[in-house]
């Protein structure tokens, strides 16, 4: 029986290169000012999936994302790197979803795809850093989960052995298959796009059938009460752009004498020394 791997990916605004124009004067996020990228931890998950595919004859990798139609870009990038097919779950009814509503919709899509042997996803996405969607999807599908995985050691006889990060160290665990794994970003650097695959998939667009399928909430038989903003238990009450309360700062230059004065003051006040 061949191995089926599903990788969950997300297109995220690159919060690492936030500039002064990242926020509008009203304090909302200026999405236009931020480039959309492949979530870094998800790239590591894709790489681990690609390595498993190399080791297991006949293995197939399906990539699933939920997002705006534009999120097809990360699916295409996955195909460029060696994924076999992809699913874009996109629907206005899914907008404004918190992690719980997101995991519900993803779980519906995974049921429609057919539960794979392994589900891999990044530990967390850089736009929220919650690390919640992986475990929540696992719970919805009643699958075992192992989070913060940095290495897949062996997959054989219906068991997978793993090394995962824990506070201050690592542990080796063994889980039954099927299961869901969340992967830390530095587990593996993802391989570059393959030029031949780029040529093959450059014009691949989401369609009802084919290599990149596009599904709506209805296509995955999602209950709209549990989707999007409506299905989200958490609500954002307020968002604030924080302005720090200014202290009376002393301004210094890199001049030796000024720095000497600073250090003497810190010593005199018993801050150091």
């Amino acid at each position: 029986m061949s191995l089926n791997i599903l990788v969950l990916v997300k297109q995220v605004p690159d919060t690492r290169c936030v500039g002064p124009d990242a926020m509008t004067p009203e304090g909302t996020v200026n999405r236009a000012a931020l480039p959309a990228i492949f979530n870094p931890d998800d790239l590591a998950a894709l790489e681990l999936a690609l390595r498993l595919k190399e080791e297991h004859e006949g293995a197939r990798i399906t990539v699933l994302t939920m997002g705006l139609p534009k999120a097809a870009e990360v699916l295409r990038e996955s195909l460029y790197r060696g994924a076999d097919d992809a699913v874009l779950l996109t629907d206005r009814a899914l907008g404004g979803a918190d992690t719980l509503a997101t995991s519900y919709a993803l779980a519906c899509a995974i049921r429609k795809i057919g539960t794979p042997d392994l589900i891999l996803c990044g530990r967390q996405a850089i736009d929220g850093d919650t690390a919640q969607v992986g475990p929540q999807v696992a719970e919805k599908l009643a699958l075992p989960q192992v989070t913060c995985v940095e290495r897949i050691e062996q997959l054989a006889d219906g068991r997978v052995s793993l090394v995962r990060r824990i506070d201050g160290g690592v542990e080796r665990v063994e889980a039954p298959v099927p299961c869901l794994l969340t992967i830390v970003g530095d587990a593996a650097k993802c391989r570059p796009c393959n030029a031949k695959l780029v040529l093959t998939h450059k014009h691949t667009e989401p369609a009802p059938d084919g290599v990149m399928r596009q599904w709506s909430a209805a296509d995955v038989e999602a209950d709209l009460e549990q989707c999007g903003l409506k299905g989200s238990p958490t609500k954002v009450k307020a968002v604030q752009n924080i302005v720090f309360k200014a202290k009376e700062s002393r301004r210094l230059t890199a001049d030796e004498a000024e720095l000497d004065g600073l250090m003497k003051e810190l010593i005199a006040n018993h801050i150091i020394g």
Partner: protein
Amino acid sequence: MNSVFVYCETDKGQLADVSFELLTKGRILADRLAVNLEAVVADSGVRGKVEKQILPYGVDRLFVFDDPVLSPYTTQPHAALLSRLFSEEQPQICLMGATTIGRDLGPRVSSACTSGLTADCTALEIGDYTDPRTGNEYKDLLYQIRPAFGGNIVATIVNPEHRPQMATVRSGVMRAEVRDADYKGEVAYPDVARYVTAEDCVVRVLERHVEQLPTNLKGAGVVVAGGYGVGSKEGFDLLRALAKELHGEVGASRAAVDAGFCEPALQIGQTGVTVRPKLYIACGISGAIQHVAGMKESGIVVSINTDPDAPINALADYVITGRVEDVVPKLLKKTPQAPRRGDV
């Protein structure tokens, strides 16, 4: 009824720091709501060891689940236990540490209970909420306050309809304080077999390797922290030298960690370590909210930055406008231990 619950973590019978901090905050929230504070411990061999640690924090009822299936920690037994306990007890709030365990367990339980969970909160308060769409008013909700979106904004999250309202908090963010050494609370020792089934115990821990943390950042009196402006790994060596001279520790902003200048364990901020040193020297750190969340209670703050308008300067007692690689070597020469050669 509808108590505040805290899920406590233990290591060889000793409660984790973050659990004491959450019990303290939980007691404050429970007082404000006029409800009980309840705590849960799930581990093996903890009966008789944890009660005296926990009750003084003002815990009205403590559940001690003591069974070999609960140790070492794997997700499903703990998740099954908590979701079943919550369906019996109907807590209104549940707090967990944003530790490896809390971040693994919290989402699983929230999904099973169909309740909202907010990760890495930096403040928790009680307040009212009016839903802007329906106009429905809600009294005394948990305000879950956290930096969001890469730490550029602060969001207040509420869970109006679903219970429990769940939140995780990092270690060191809240303060721990005993309520009353003789506080009288009940202790229950439920039968674990009623909550956890054999199907929950399918993941096995084969071995565990935990090291002493390489840094004592959390408790350091002096922190020399570097940001993206440090520019390189070599730049961090300078910071290490200064930290050593000042008997302090080196920290970093997320940008520096992401850029690979130093190891992730050094990250200060909402998703890293929270520090409260007497002296905080910020080198080439702009001051995203997510970073400031982890250092704002520092005593004296010195900011070294080429940008005279870096946001962190507003928090600084001393603002040095200049390049890190120029300023830090000069400071190194002036440290109390450094041989005084006189000004050049």
